[in-house]
């Protein structure tokens, strides 16, 4: 018991846990659509593409944290619009457009941050997260924007489901398809910005994809998938942080590794079970 409680006497650890749980839930719920619509590469790219926004905020704000959030949000929205514009107006395929925008923006971000002398420490925080550096004000931003994202996903639940499953049906039901598509991209962008401090730019896609994919293996209903993904992500956040505390490893990496371990476990159990079912069928047949 003391093993569990000991880290909590540090306020930074308690805040870190709250942040990890909250971000885990938001990422997992939005992640359900990222997984179902095959947007993993887009999510990864968007996370990287906000680096120049952070860099500008970092340079302009002279190291202050608050403006970073807003600059990151602006960069995320511009990048998602840019990706859409390139693939719509040229014959370039969307994944290529994503690659161009993502790598270019990421390089710009690194270049900007490298102009500051102490850049390696700060860059590492942006890339891999700094969950133990979460301050009360950061927590409030996470609560408000994370809450807004979840509310939007619930409010547009049936519209997003129709759009993701069958875009032609969405058109014949006269849904505002483009607006909804745009809204979903914005929700992914906000989620990424909210989660930035927990796992950082480089590991972000894991939070979006891994818990949702684990839940996808377990269920056949979308609401259940979202709920399970949220539980898996929240638990992984807590377990990962404790691991990071006791093993002295980077917290973002510990959280992501826990998510990955949960996925591997579920996948392993499922393949063993399937093999057993096949064996049983085979055995039944040989008895006849």
């Amino acid at each position: 018991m003391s093993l569990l409680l000991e880290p909590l006497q540090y306020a930074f650890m308690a805040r870190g846990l709250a942040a990890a749980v909250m971000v885990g839930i938001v990422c997992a719920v939005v992640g359900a659509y990222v997984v179902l619509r095959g947007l993993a590469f887009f999510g990864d790219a968007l996370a990287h593409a906000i680096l120049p926004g952070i860099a500008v905020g970092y340079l302009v704000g002279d190291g202050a944290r608050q403006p970073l959030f807003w600059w990151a949000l602006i960069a995320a929205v511009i990048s998602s619009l840019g990706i859409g514009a390139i693939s719509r107006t040229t014959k370039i395929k969307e994944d290529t457009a994503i690659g161009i925008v993502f790598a270019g923006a990421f390089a710009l971000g690194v270049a900007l941050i490298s102009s500051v002398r102490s850049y390696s420490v700060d860059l590492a925080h942006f890339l891999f997260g700094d969950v133990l550096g979460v301050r009360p004000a950061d927590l409030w931003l996470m609560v408000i924007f994370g809450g807004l994202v979840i509310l939007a996903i619930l409010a547009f639940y049936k519209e997003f489901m129709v759009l993701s499953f069958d875009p032609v049906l969405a058109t014949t039901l006269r849904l505002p398809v483009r607006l909804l598509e745009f809204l979903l991209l914005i929700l992914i962008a906000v989620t990424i910005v909210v989660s930035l401090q927990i796992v950082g730019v480089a590991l972000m896609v894991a939070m979006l994809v891994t818990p949702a994919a684990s839940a996808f293996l377990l269920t056949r209903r979308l609401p259940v998938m979202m709920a399970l993904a949220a539980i898996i992500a929240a638990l992984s956040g807590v377990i990962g942080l404790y691991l990071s505390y006791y093993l002295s490893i980077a917290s973002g990496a510990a959280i992501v590794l826990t998510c990955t371990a949960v996925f591997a476990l579920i996948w392993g159990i499922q393949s063993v079970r399937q093999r057993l079912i096949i064996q049983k069928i085979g055995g039944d047949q040989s008895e006849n």
Partner: protein
Amino acid sequence: MAVIEELQKTTQYLSRQRDPHEVDEPILRVEGLSKAYESGAALENVTFEIDMGEQLAVVGPNGAGKSTLFKVIAGVESPTEGRVHIFGHSPRGHICIAYLTQRSQVDWSFPVTVADVVMMGRVGQLGLFRNPKAQDWEIVNNALEVVKMNHLAKRQISQLSGGQQQRMFIARALAQQAELMLMDEPLGGLDLNSQEKILGVLDDLRRANVTVLISLHDLKIASQHFDRIMLLNHHMLGIGAPQEVLNPENLVAAYGGHLHLVPTEDGMLALGDTCCDEQ
């Protein structure tokens, strides 16, 4: 321009205002419809009308423009020239048109049940921020009853056979309370038993006065089950009773070099040497 159109769609969806159904207009009137892609013309100057409750089979070779015709009628794609009138207005103002998705276009591992998919047909009537009520579930159950799939309502969609998948889409169109159903190759890739079941459902739809446009590969099924038939190969080569439309000249014009007509004692024998190349 695109932004304005999107805003119009949004207000239309929010207000749930649809275009009226003019009583003196047919359910579907297509005038001089052409659709060209970069790769060439898919449809050229197609004109026809169908009446309420009619079932029209559209036949023609692969790549003849059948799917394009359906998508333009559904308002999913815009015509290059010409117009589509649904009860006298553009299809974009109506939710009474159902386009039955081709089975190959759907991700069957999507985590939804049969009832969930059929309920998707209700979304247009429900509108934003409104959840399905008891009345909507009743409509969904009745729709599943018509296609005889009530016992499968809770199944995940990946566990359905091809014929069941197709009937689920018909149920979804019924839940949408569609008056015009566009069925793009619903019999493609199905065994005879499944095909029979869907043809049975079509008979029920005829009794329920639902208007159906159906594209078919099999000329025999088309001529046995449908009173009116359209032969399409970019141009409309004929429309009317099967025996009038499916004459040797029209068939050669439609199927071209792939069709050989051989005179036999019983009459003409038509041999095709093409099948199933990708559209």
